[in-house]
C-alpha cells in the first residue's frame, strides 16, 4: 500500500492518469454516496415542516416533534422499545461474553464447529423464517399457559442479539495477550480473580461494543417483533409500520429523525471505541 502511493506521483507525471483510478469508478462512487444520503435528507427536512405535507415546505417548526412527544402511543412504544433493547442486549452480552471465553484461546474441541454454527445461526437464517418459527412455538405456549407478557419478545430478541454481541467480544479476545492471565495465575490468583482483575478490564471495550451493537439491532428489529408480539405490545418500529398504512403526517418523519440521530450517535461511539482498541 505504502509502496504504491510512493510510486504513483511519478506515474502521474509520466502518464495522463493515476494508476489507481479506473475509468468512471470515482463518478460511480460519488453517485453511490449521494444516493445513500439523498433519501435521508428530505426525511429529516420535512420533519421540521409547519404544514402537514411531506413535499411542500410551509415554514420551520417543531410542531411534529411536539405532536410525537404528546402522543401516548408513541411514548408507550418508545419505552417498550428501550426496555426490550436494554433487557435483550444485557442478557445477550453476558451470554455472549461467556460463550466467547468458552470458544476462543482454546484447543479445538469436539463440537466447536457446531457451536459456531449455532451461535451464528441468527445471521444466516432469514429473519422471516425465524419469525414464523417463533410464532408457531409461542402460539402454543401462549395457548397452554395463557401468559402474554414481554418474556417472549425478550427471549426472541436475546437470541438474535447473541451473535452481534459475540463477534466483537471474540475479536477482542483473540487479539489479547494470554501471558498476563498466565502471570496472574502464577501469582496464585483464583480463576475468578484473574477474570475480574485482568481479563475483564482488557476485554471491556469489546464487551461495550458488542452490547451497543446488540442494543441497536434489537431497537431496529421489525420482522420478528411484528410476528411475535401480542396485541398492545407495539415497539416503535412496529408502531411506525402500522402508521405507514394510514395517511402519513410529518410526525412519522419526526420519530424517524430522532431514531436516525440515535443510530448515528451509537455508530459514532462504536467507531471510536473500535479505533481506540485497534
Amino acid at each position: 500500500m505504502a509502496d504504491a502511493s510512493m510510486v504513483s506521483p511519478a506515474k502521474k507525471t509520466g502518464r495522463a492518469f493515476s494508476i489507481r483510478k479506473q475509468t468512471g469508478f470515482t463518478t460511480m462512487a460519488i453517485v453511490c454516496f449521494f444516493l445513500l444520503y439523498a433519501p435521508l435528507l428530505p426525511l429529516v427536512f420535512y420533519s421540521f415542516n409547519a404544514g402537514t405535507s411531506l413535499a411542500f415546505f410551509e415554514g420551520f417548526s417543531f410542531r411534529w416533534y411536539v405532536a410525537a412527544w404528546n402522543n401516548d402511543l408513541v411514548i408507550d412504544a418508545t419505552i417498550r422499545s428501550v426496555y426490550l433493547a436494554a433487557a435483550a442486549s444485557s442478557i445477550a452480552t453476558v451470554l455472549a461474553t461467556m460463550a466467547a471465553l468458552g470458544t476462543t484461546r482454546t484447543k479445538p474441541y469436539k463440537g466447536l464447529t457446531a457451536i459456531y454454527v449455532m451461535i451464528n445461526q441468527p445471521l444466516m437464517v432469514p429473519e422471516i423464517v425465524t419469525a414464523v418459527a417463533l410464532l408457531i412455538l409461542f402460539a402454543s405456549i401462549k395457548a397452554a399457559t395463557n401468559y402474554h407478557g414481554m418474556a417472549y419478545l425478550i427471549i426472541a430478541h436475546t437470541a438474535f442479539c447473541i451473535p452481534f454481541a459475540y463477534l466483537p467480544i471474540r475479536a477482542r479476545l483473540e487479539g489479547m495477550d494470554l501471558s498476563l492471565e498466565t502471570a496472574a495465575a502464577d501469582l496464585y490468583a483464583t480463576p475468578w480473580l484473574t477474570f475480574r482483575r485482568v481479563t475483564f478490564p482488557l476485554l471491556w471495550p469489546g464487551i461495550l461494543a458488542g452490547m451497543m451493537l446488540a442494543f441497536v439491532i434489537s431497537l431496529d428489529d421489525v420482522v420478528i417483533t411484528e410476528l411475535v408480539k401480542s396485541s398492545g405490545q407495539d415497539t416503535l418500529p412496529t408502531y411506525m409500520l402500522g402508521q405507514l398504512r394510514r395517511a402519513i403526517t410529518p410526525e412519522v418523519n419526526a420519530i424517524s429523525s430522532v431514531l436516525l440521530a440515535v443510530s448515528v450517535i451509537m455508530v459514532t461511539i462504536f467507531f471510536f471505541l473500535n479505533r481506540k482498541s485497534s
Partner: protein
Amino acid sequence: MSTDSHLIQASTSAETAQQNETRRHILLTTPALIVLFCAASGPLLIMAVYSFLSPGDYGGVQWSFSTDGWFGVFMQRDIFDDTLTIADAHVSILWRSVKLSLMTTIVCLIFGLPTAYFIATRPASSRNLWLFMVTIPFWTNLLIRTFAVMELIRNQGVINTALKSIGAIEEPIQIMFTDFAIMIGMTYVYLPLMVLPIYASMEKFDFRLVEAGYDLYASRWNVLKRIILPLVKPGIVAGSILVFIPSLGAYVTPRILGGGKNLMLGNFIALQFGQGRNWPLGAALSITLLVIVMVALLFYVRGVGKSGNAHG
C-alpha cells in the same frame, strides 16, 4: 468448584487438566446455546413438523398428517375434482422473489464495486471516514430507510411534486406498488452490505499489481478484468451473498413499497400465518426459503474456498 479443580490439577496428569479445561469451556458456552436452542434452532425443528400437518380452521394446525402444505408450495388442489395443478400465483411469487433479489444483487454490485475501490484507493487517513459514511446508513433502521425511499417515489412524494412544479409532468409517475419500487428500495437498503465485504477484500490488495499491469501495456479494461476482479472475487462473492439472502427473505421493504399485490416470498409466508390461515403451507414455504438460502451459502463457502486456493 475451585477446590475441586485444584485437587484434580494437583493429582492427575496434564491430559485430565486439558479435559477439565475443555469441560469448563463448554460449560461457559452452554447458557448461550440454551437460549439459541429455545429461540432459534428449536423453533425451526417444530416448524418442520408443522409443515406436515393439516391447517386448522382459524389458524393453527390440526394434528393429522398431511403433505398438502408441501404440495401447496407449487401446486393447488382443485376444490371440485381434487386434481393438482400448478399454482400460478405461488410460482409467480417465488419467481418474483428470485428475480428481484438477483436484480438487486446486480445493481448493488454495479454501485458497490466502484465505491469499495474508491474507498480503498483513498489515503489511509481519510479511508476510515469514507468507510464510516457507508456504515451510518447500514446501522440506520431499515424501516426508516424504506420509509425515506417511499417519501421520494410516492405519487405525492418529493420527486413527483418537484417534477410537477417545474411542469415536466402532468400526472405523477406511478413508481410505488411496482416491482421496480421494491428493487429500488432493496438496492438502497442493502447497498452497504455489498460495499463493506468488497472493501475488506481490497484493503489488503497490492496496488503495485495494477501498476505492473499498466507497465506491461494492459488496457484499463484488461487490468480490471485480469487483475482486480480475480483478486477481489472473494469479496464480491461475499457481498453478493450478503445482499441476495436478505433480499430473498425481505419482508418490510416489499410490504411498504410493493403493496398488497406485489408480494415477495417473505410477505407470502407471513400472509399464511395471518389472513391466509394456512400454517402448514407457511411452514413449508419457510423451509423452502431456508433451503434456497443454505444452497446459496454452500455455494459461497465453495466459491471462496476455490478462489482462495487459486490465488492464495
